[in-house]
């Protein structure tokens, strides 16, 4: 960011949902849907916010506009005549949306609008679409019915529909048309910022391009800023100037779209980028497959939240393994810790393969277990091999806890102990990965 004041500046935004609760039960914990997110959106800029489903990107957007009340953090909005404000003496900011009172919030609503994901539910089925588009006008005090109608009809034309559609009902439109209508409704108050929450993910690919084109055209005509939320990097690439990648409630990498997509610095971004389908020969990339399951946001992993799935997870001092074998050992460890390793299924698969009956000896079981987790027969590092073999021995002996403990004592990545700080890569491109920290010399490749 240059020295210019950004339109929207989000700092340390958190949204936690208490679990349990109710009158009788005490609240026991919280789902940390958004856990300390910071980003800026400049004037006229499009920021793409990407991440897989459930990573908290929609919640972040809804917290920014206070459709959900944020748990903590600051949302400073400098649009709509609020520019140039400086902080109060007590450190609060006069443009902090999270502190807005009723009247301020209503005025703020005029300057930020949203386009939603699901075209079937984003219009009131009992209202004509024209009335839906014009409704914000009457909310904000434009009581002249004729003017409201004229404005809505003009907007209908701008988004590629006809003024005659004013009196029609939502069920008479296709999904793509409804998203156009949604854009018209988001524009009607002449906002500075439009938040588009997966606006095209429910549409066919051919229609997606039309709607994206319309959004870009409108944006350049009216100098809008857009916060564009999507799980699809290939869509974000089309429209965003900068992109922020979210994982489990946190931003892991942020930077100019081109830089992030061509040279991703965070392993999670690498994996997302590798999943973008490419056209033509030669452009074929090795697709990175993420192992492990998405962790539960009410109990996120310690340290770097991605370490349970990361393909580039850092190896501790004294262990030197092939990176994929290292990843597999960690997977085995996490599964053991979660109590998800079931020896009976291992036995079943041996019986199915060899028609063996009766008791199976330990070495067969051990080999099969390694095969199931994609581990080699023996690890290249003798120390690691000794510990792994010992752990498997303990597991076959029936003591899963001891097995997990033994693995945990040796195969402990620095990633789970230290939460990574952001490191800059130039040009506003920053990522949060331990591999870039200066005190981790061994770059595992």
């Amino acid at each position, binding site marked *: 960011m240059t020295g210019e004041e950004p339109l929207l500046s989000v700092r340390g935004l958190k949204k936690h949902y208490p679990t349990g609760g109710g009158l009788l039960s005490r609240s026991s914990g919280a789902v940390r849907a958004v856990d300390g997110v910071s980003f800026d959106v400049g004037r006229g800029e499009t920021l793409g916010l990407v991440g897989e489903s459930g990573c908290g990107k929609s919640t972040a957007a809804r917290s920014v506009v206070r*459709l959900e009340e944020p748990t903590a953090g600051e949302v400073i909005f400098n649009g709509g005549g609020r520019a140039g404000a400086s902080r109060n003496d007590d450190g609060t900011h006069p443009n902090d949306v999270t502190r807005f009172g009723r009247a301020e919030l209503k005025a703020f609503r005029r300057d930020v609008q949203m386009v939603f994901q699901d075209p079937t539910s984003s219009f009131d089925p009992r209202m*004509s679409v024209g009335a839906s588009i014009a409704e*914000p006008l009457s909310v904000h005090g434009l009581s002249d*019915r004729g003017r409201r109608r004229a404005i809505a009809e003009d907007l209908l034309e701008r988004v590629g529909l006809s003024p005659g559609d004013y009196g029609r009902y939502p069920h008479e439109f296709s999904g793509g048309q409804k998203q156009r209508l949604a854009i018209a409704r988001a524009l009607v108050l002449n906002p500075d910022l439009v938040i588009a929450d997966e606006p095209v993910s429910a549409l066919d690919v051919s229609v997606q391009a039309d709607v994206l084109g319309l959004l870009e055209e409108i944006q350049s005509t009216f100098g809008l800023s857009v916060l564009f939320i999507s799980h699809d990097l290939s869509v974000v690439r089309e429209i965003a100037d900068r992109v922020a990648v979210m994982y489990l409630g946190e931003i892991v990498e942020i930077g100019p779209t081109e830089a992030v997509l061509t040279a991703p610095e965070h392993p999670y971004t690498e994996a997302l980028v590798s999943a973008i389908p490419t056209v033509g020969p030669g452009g074929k990339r090795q697709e990175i497959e993420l192992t492990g399951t998405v962790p539960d946001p009410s109990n996120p992993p310690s340290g770097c939240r991605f370490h349970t799935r990361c393909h580039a997870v850092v190896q501790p001092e004294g262990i030197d393994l092939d990176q994929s074998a290292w990843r597999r050992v960690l997977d085995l460890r996490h599964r053991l810790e979660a109590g998800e390793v079931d020896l009976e299924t291992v036995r079943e698969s041996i019986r199915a393969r060899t028609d063996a009956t009766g008791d199976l000896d330990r070495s067969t079981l051990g080999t099969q277990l390694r095969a199931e987790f994609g581990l080699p027969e023996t690890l290249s590092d003798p120390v690691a091999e000794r510990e792994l073999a010992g752990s498997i021995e303990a597991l076959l002996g029936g003591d899963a806890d001891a097995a997990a403990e033994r693995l945990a004592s040796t195969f402990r990545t620095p990633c789970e102990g230290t939460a990574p700080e952001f490191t800059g890569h130039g040009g506003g491109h920053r990522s949060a990965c331990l591999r870039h920290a200066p005190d981790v010399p061994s770059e595992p490749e």
Partner: protein
Amino acid sequence: MPPERFDRIDWEEHAGSSGFSASINTVAFVLTALSVLALAGYDRLFAAERETVFGALARDVGVGPRFESLGIGADPGALEYLFVITLLLFVWYLLAPLYQNPRMTRYYWDRFTRNRPAVVSLGWLFVVFAGGLLGPLLLSAPQQDVLAGHQPPVYLSIDASNVARCLGETVGGRCHGTWRYPLGTTQAGEGVFRNVVYGMTISMQIAFITTTIVAAIGITFGTVSAYAGGWVDEALMRFVDIVLSFPTLLFFLLILYIYGAGLGMFILVFSLFAWGGTARYVRSKALSIAEEEYVDAARISGASTYRVVRRHVVPNTASSIITQLTLLVPGFLLAEAQLAFLGLGDSGINSWGQLISAGRSDLAFAPWIVLAPGIVLFLTILAFNFLGDALLDALNPKTEAERGR
């Protein structure tokens, strides 16, 4: 002046304006309802004890007996005024919007007419409605005439020994019916046809007033409960549990023995304890609608919670509420008839139940006294049930969404 454009509005100009503008329907309803209330107030304050309100009005305004010559000679009571106001609600908030949104109306009408029995039911209910509304204006109330008791309906005959005086022809010892009493007469000589017509008024009064009370309380409790949440929700829903488990009939009998019970008391007691299910239903609907994106869109446009509820939540629950209320009406009509049959009803009114009750001792030789109102009651209840089912299908948003895709 350039064409209106969204980016040329000077919002400072509108700052501070709430944007509140009453819809034309609200204005019309308030005006008409106020004039009815004014008439009721005039009736209470200025009309003499035995004078009709229109008679008093004609005297005070000085137009002579002009009202009576127009056929407006009715002397409405509190129940009638309430009935008229509920009718106004029905006209301005249900019929007028249908007229104002012809596209929507045609859409639902097409879906509704796929159900033939429902169309017939609607026709029958319209007959009952029109009969109840216009009948008392066109026909005078049934009069007792002991000498004309037990006259058979037209085209039917009865053994002449059962009638005091046969008004029609007596052929071969059998008394035949006349057009003067198309459906015959009761023991007291009241015309069954007129009684049935007057019963339509009573039934319509029961239907409209109870549904209005049930809808008003149910929608208020349901939406407040859904939107307030927390302990308010908890308290309101526990109150609904109490209402639902309240022994309404026993309570009504208690009131009956202490104060006596007219039709007004019947309507009041039964509707005040019938809204529990509606409130629960509205609450669950409102909760699911609150999740819809168009509610988020309205909220993010700055709409207040009241506006969201009034403009989006209630209209979208309306279809289900209408269906539910339509299915609630038969219960009230049956309850009234049952109480009347047991002799616990309001004996001062010409309800179908009273007529059935009056005819049960003569069932052996004059079955029409029971059959005529019984069949009409049966058909009306059947029609309400058919209508409710058809409305459920026609207004169901699920099937609508599937068609919309």
